[in-house]
């Protein structure tokens, strides 16, 4: 364990993100705290992916403030992200994880053992020697998860982790997410799959048009959505 | 990864440097002509010279004009060509030390068996050329400032013909060497002036044969010159002079005279003939 101040809570204060005339995030205020997984739900284009990228400090907001563990600039070592379509390095599965461990600063001796552990956790131990690009979609998603876990994150972001997977692969990934959350990692995942949000999330942030329209614990959100947009979305209607 | 690259570069450079140093030792560069090279003469006489002196002779074969330019630039130690007027100018300009006679060969007028100008078997070169011009029979010229080209042009002049007017229709300048000119003449049923040496070794004759030979105007003298070390200090004057001395010596002259193709002598030693 490295002796560093924690990243959580990640606090957004009136964060805006504009690209030219287009507003992607519009005065977003929320916080990610330790606890059960948070689902970011909302229609396409609502800003879910951008919100995650800002939280990961991959993009700087054009307005507002964001802090990690109370600090405005910090080493972003213990956060990790799985992209919607994760890029596989042109190497074996094990080598991919090894690379992530190396980027996280682990020495060679430690990497070998830890890579095996991580592959075990995500259920890819048998495929360690296979070229990563020849894994199935679900397997690649799980490998990306192993790479993310290599950073020993406090908070793990997943952007539509099962969007292109079949039900069996989706189930495997959701079980992993639950397992990771159980280990104490804060999980924040974007999804347009309401069923998934119901199954996995502890609390919901509903976005539309770059704004956080509603934020509530999962039970309450689905039972009695407070806003008209959220209610419409839960019913399955189009919300633009 | 980068370190490996730089190591390879350093090694290559070192090898190259070592190579250059070794190769610079006892060798000279002689600028000569493609027709001389193509005749095979050098292959015959140089081994004897190298065996005697241990000096390696590197022949850069070009057209006469180019060979003289190579000497002017200092890129050769000795110049050995066959264009007397240009050679004397070369010495007069201070690029060469002295011009010495070495040998002569002769030119032959080659033509197609169909002989459109009706000159086959004659011995008068000027009359033949007049006939070719009159009948506008196709003629291939090297057009490359070579010794052969210079000889060809002076023959036309001696015959009183202005070939500039014939360019295109029947007189074709190709800007290439003797072999290429013969190839072109063969495929286009044209006349062409060639040195005898190239003609004898030329294998792709097709329907070409010698039309005119033996005219004194067709004789082709060779001269050898040391590139002036006063102009180009790096010239290997001593080694170059050894080569020149050998070429006009009894042994060198005998080697030249003994070169045969198909039983025929190509070059006639003429050192000391002035």
């Amino acid at each position: 364990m490295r002796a560093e101040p924690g990243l959580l809570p990640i606090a957004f204060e009136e964060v805006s993100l504009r690209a030219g005339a287009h507003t992607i995030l519009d005065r977003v205020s929320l916080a990610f705290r330790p606890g059960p997984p948070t689902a970011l739900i909302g229609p396409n284009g609502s800003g879910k992916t951008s919100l995650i990228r800002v939280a990961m400090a991959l993009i700087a907001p054009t307005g507002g403030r964001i802090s990690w563990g109370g600090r405005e600039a910090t080493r972003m070592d213990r956060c990790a992200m799985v992209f919607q379509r994760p890029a596989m390095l042109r190497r074996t599965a094990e080598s991919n994880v090894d690379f992530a461990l190396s980027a996280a600063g682990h020495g060679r001796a430690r990497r070998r053992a830890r890579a095996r552990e991580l592959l075990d956790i995500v259920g890819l131990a048998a495929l360690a020697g296979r070229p990563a690009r020849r894994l199935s979609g679900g397997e690649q998603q799980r490998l990306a998860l192993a790479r993310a876990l290599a950073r020993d994150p406090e908070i793990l972001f997943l952007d539509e982790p099962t969007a292109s997977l079949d039900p069996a692969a989706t189930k495997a990934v959701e079980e992993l997410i639950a397992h990771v959350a159980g280990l104490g990692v804060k999980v924040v995942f974007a999804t347009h799959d309401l069923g998934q949000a119901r199954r996995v999330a502890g609390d919901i942030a509903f976005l539309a048009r770059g704004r956080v329209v509603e934020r509530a614990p999962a039970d309450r959100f689905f039972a009695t959505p407070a806003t008209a947009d959220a209610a419409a979305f839960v019913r399955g209607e189009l919300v633009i | 990864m980068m370190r490996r690259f730089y190591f390879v570069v350093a090694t290559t450079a070192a090898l190259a440097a070592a190579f250059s140093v070794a190769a610079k030792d006892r060798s000279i560069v002689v600028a000569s002509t493609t027709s001389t090279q193509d005749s095979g003469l050098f292959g015959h006489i140089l081994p004897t010279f190298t065996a005697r002196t241990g000096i390696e002779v590197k022949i850069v074969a070009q057209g006469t004009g180019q060979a003289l330019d190579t000497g002017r630039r200092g890129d050769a130690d000795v110049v050995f060509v066959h264009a007397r007027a240009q050679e004397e100018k070369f010495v007069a300009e201070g690029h060469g030390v002295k011009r010495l006679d070495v040998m002569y060969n002769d030119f032959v007028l080659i033509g197609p068996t169909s002989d459109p100008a009706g000159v086959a078997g004659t011995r008068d070169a000027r009359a033949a050329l007049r006939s070719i011009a009159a009948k506008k029979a196709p003629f291939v010229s090297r057009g490359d400032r070579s010794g052969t080209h210079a000889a060809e042009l002076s023959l036309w002049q001696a015959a009183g013909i202005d070939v500039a007017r014939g360019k295109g229709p029947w007189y074709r300048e190709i800007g290439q060497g003797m072999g290429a000119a013969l190839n072109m003449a063969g495929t286009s049923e044209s006349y062409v002036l060639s040195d005898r040496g190239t003609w004898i070794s030329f294998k792709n004759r097709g329907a070409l044969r010698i039309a005119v030979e033996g005219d004194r105007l067709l004789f082709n003298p060779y001269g050898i010159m040391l590139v002036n070390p006063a102009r180009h200090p790096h010239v290997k004057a001593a080694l170059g002079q050894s080569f020149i001395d050998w070429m006009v010596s009894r042994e060198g002259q005998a080697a030249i005279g003994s070169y045969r193709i198909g039983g025929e002598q190509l070059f006639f030693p003429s050192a000391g003939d002035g």
Partner: protein
Amino acid sequence: MPEGISAWDLVIGGDATLYAIIALSLGVSLSATVLAAAIALPLGAFLALVEFPARASVVVVLNAFMGLPPVVVGLAFFLLLSRSGPLGFLGVLYTPEAMALAQAFLVLPIIAALARQAIEDLWIEYRDEFRAMRVGGAARVGALIRDARFSLVTAVLAGFGRAAAEVGTVMVVGGNIDGFTRTMTTAIALETSKGDLALAIGLGLVLIAVIVAVNALVWSVRRAGERIAG
């Protein structure tokens, strides 16, 4: 060359002169390729990864130089290396070293442009992940070169193929000196102009065999790449 013997006999019989020509050709082109690659691969990586104001123009020029006519390169080096030229004091005109140097210049743009393309394509693919994983500059370059290694080898082989097949550069810079700077391509040009087509054809077949071998190597490198890296 001994007369009356066909080119095929020379190749099969292991004629020393012929083999010397082949050895020189391969030696010059190999040296040229190694030298060019040593500069072109880092250059390609640099152009792929570093943003600077004139970058687009440099890439355009580099791509254009892939099509440099060999004889023009030969002329340029001839003027440079002639005793009357700026680098004349080196005294390397009409030597194999000069030929290798000139050929290196000829193939450098090819290797650099192909390397840049390979690394840039991979970088675009990896960029997000590298940023999310906070991978540092040196580690990025190392990972890209390692993962693109098969494409980079292919780029180098493409350079070698071009070097081995060209005649304009080595003819002008080397002078086609018998036993010293005569390569397969210049020998073919010479024998053709002498009308000795049988020998020219024989040399041509050997040269084609070399080119085919290089392309077969490229193909098997690609296959290995797919097998190992996916």
